[in-house]
């Protein structure tokens, strides 16, 4: 089945329970048929696929994760828009929640450090961090430059990291993260570990030489690396067609001989299933996988310009978008396929929860996030002198600003 990837894919929901497709899909699963690039013939939400084996508890936890990300983003956007004392900022992940959630649900996110799977994030990191299991209150404190934040106020949004859950961290640069992630995968393989490294990178990373170096070396060395390309159509304010000649970025990965798949990034089960196959392959010594998730962000590139407090998404003017404006209709069309709504519908359709319980869970998550902000924003500010610490493992460097 052909999918026009320039418009939001729409087939998964209405074909969820098609009996004829189920027969085909069972056959495909039994034969281990590879998913071809950009032309997925499988409705991955079908039950015979990996997510169908998940416990109800795990499915509910994935739904909670999606909601935690969503309400973290909405709460933070509202803080930026309404609280003059709030100094934090974010490159908001709202709209892309199913990607981080579906991938990280397959990973080892707790336990001894030498067994954790590592996630490398982009400069749109809050969703990846939450899905990997960071402590949300301490992330909230970090994003508002608090001394007791996850990284002591040194990081802020673009550099958050929590090695205790295998969250290697955000990166403010476009380019280096995938190459570095491949180095972790290289180390896992060299020491005989079954850990895997995952890198989330946007469509903007395609043009950087690092993209190509990563895939070439991952394939040459059979590294346990999963490259998750979150194609939300825009790098900053430029459409990805300005920097990539391929409709599917995954077709570039295929050129390096790496199994590559495009998935509906709005559907957590579809993402989960693709990531499950990738993680199984990597742990089993089968080498790298490239997953391109077609997705969309509800806010502008950075911060909350164009957004209104209490409302989801940014429809207004963004003064930073000098030459390129994404069409409002495009945003509205993508919001019709909201990852929260899709996850909720799957859980209800599968009888995991009913609508009332699903709504209750959302209220529980909203309360949890509200508490996280209350705690985070009441934390102490940093001591200026501490800026001289953590340059090297020991000691401080001298102050030089006084002459």
């Amino acid at each position: 089945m052909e999918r026009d990837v320039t418009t939001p894919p729409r087939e998964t929901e209405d074909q969820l329970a098609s009996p004829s497709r189920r027969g085909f899909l069972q056959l495909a699963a039994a034969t281990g048929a590879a998913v071809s690039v950009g032309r997925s013939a499988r409705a991955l939400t079908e039950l015979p696929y990996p997510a169908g084996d998940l416990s109800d508890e795990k499915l509910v936890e994935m739904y909670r994760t999606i909601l935690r990300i969503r309400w973290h983003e909405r709460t933070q956007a509202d803080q930026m828009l309404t609280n003059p004392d709030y100094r934090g900022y974010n490159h908001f992940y709202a709209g892309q929640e199913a990607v981080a959630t579906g991938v990280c649900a397959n990973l080892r996110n707790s336990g001894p450090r030498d067994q954790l799977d590592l996630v490398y994030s982009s400069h749109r990191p809050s969703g990846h961090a939450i899905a990997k299991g960071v402590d949300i209150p301490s992330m909230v404190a970090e994003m508002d430059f608090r001394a007791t934040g996850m990284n002591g106020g040194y990081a802020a949004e673009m550099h958050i990291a929590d090695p205790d859950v295998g969250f290697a961290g955000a990166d403010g640069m476009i380019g280096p993260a995938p190459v570095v992630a491949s180095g972790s995968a290289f180390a896992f393989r060299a020491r005989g570990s079954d850990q895997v490294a995952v890198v989330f990178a946007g469509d903007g990373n395609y043009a950087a030489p690092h993209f190509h170096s990563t895939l070439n070396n991952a394939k040459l060395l059979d590294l346990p690396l999963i490259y998750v390309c979150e194609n939300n159509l825009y790098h900053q304010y430029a459409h990805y067609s300005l920097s990539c000649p391929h409709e599917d970025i995954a077709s570039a990965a295929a050129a390096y001989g790496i199994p590559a798949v495009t998935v509906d990034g709005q559907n957590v089960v579809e993402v989960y299933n693709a990531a499950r196959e990738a993680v199984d392959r990597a742990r089993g010594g089968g080498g790298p996988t490239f997953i391109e998730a077609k997705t969309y962000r509800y806010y502008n590139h950075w911060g909350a310009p164009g957004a209104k407090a209490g409302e989801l998404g940014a429809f207004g003017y963004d003064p930073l978008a000098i030459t390129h404006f994404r069409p409002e209709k495009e945003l509205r069309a993508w919001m019709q396929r909201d990852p929260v709504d899709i996850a909720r519908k799957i859980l209800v359709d599968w009888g995991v929860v009913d609508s009332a319980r699903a709504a209750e869970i959302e209220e529980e998550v909203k309360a949890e996030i509200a508490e996280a902000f209350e705690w985070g924003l009441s934390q102490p500010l940093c001591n200026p002198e501490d800026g001289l610490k953590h340059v090297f493992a020991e000691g401080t460097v001298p102050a030089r600003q006084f002459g």
Partner: protein
Amino acid sequence: MAQKSWMYSVLEAVQHEMREDPAMTWIFELTPPVASNPGKPVINLETEFGRKRVVNTGIDENWMASAVVGAGLAGSKAATYIPYQGACMPFEVIQNVASKLRHKTGGRASVPVVWIIEMTGQTPGFAQQHSCYEEDSYYMHIPGVRTVIPSTPYDAKGMMHAAIRSPDPVVYLYPAGLRTLTEEVPDEAYEVPLDKAAVRMEGSDLTIVSSGAGMPGVLEAAETLTGEGASVEVIDLRALNQMDTETIVNSVAKTKRLLTVDQSYYTLCPGAEVIARAVENVDGVKVKRVAFPDAPPPASPEMFLWMRPGPENVVEAARALL
């Protein structure tokens, strides 16, 4: 003549040179070459010169920096605008390819290109990779590349004309924190030399040397010191390589006191070179060096603003010298 912003002044120079030379090209990523100014026509290089000459690439500073070198070797003047997110990604091709081309070919190759490299370090909270102000030290160390750092819209325009017309490759550092400055800038083309410092204030008790984003704070501090009765001479380096030793030495020979101010890291900051040249040439000079500590710029505004040298640090250090 009109009050013009920094970026409008720069793009006015580029527009003029591109109209004069139909082979000249401009490569950018993310930051479109567009500027507006009250009472002046909007400048948009992309629409005026078309997408064959003015190219919006993907996020690939290595290609941008290398492509202008190749364009230069092919006989075309070329410039590229590297935003601060990738300010050192071009380093290898500038340091190890472009800078050595003229010398290694025995003078036969010429690379008449300009890399406009944004520096940040101005906005508290941007943190670490979006807050650094160290590119001056890195790029000024490269022989064969002229590294300049204007600090006013007037100089920005005149040095852009000079950079594009120069037969040498030029790293043109742009401290993004100065983008809000405006001043009277002529409409016509003019050149500001790429190897001359500017004496911004004349005095006889103390020489303060700074550059780029350090200048507004230094001038503010100099006003304070003047109010306290001190006679302060302020030098804006403008050229980091080749540095204008003569202007520095002449001033320090008069004042015998030298304070350098940098937002770059202490070790190998431009001021370190200024001090070395001064004490090599003038006996009995008292010196002090104000700079950002040798630590990456942290996110917290409390830490960052304490570490980044401000006017009050300059005043305190000057008082200690006087």
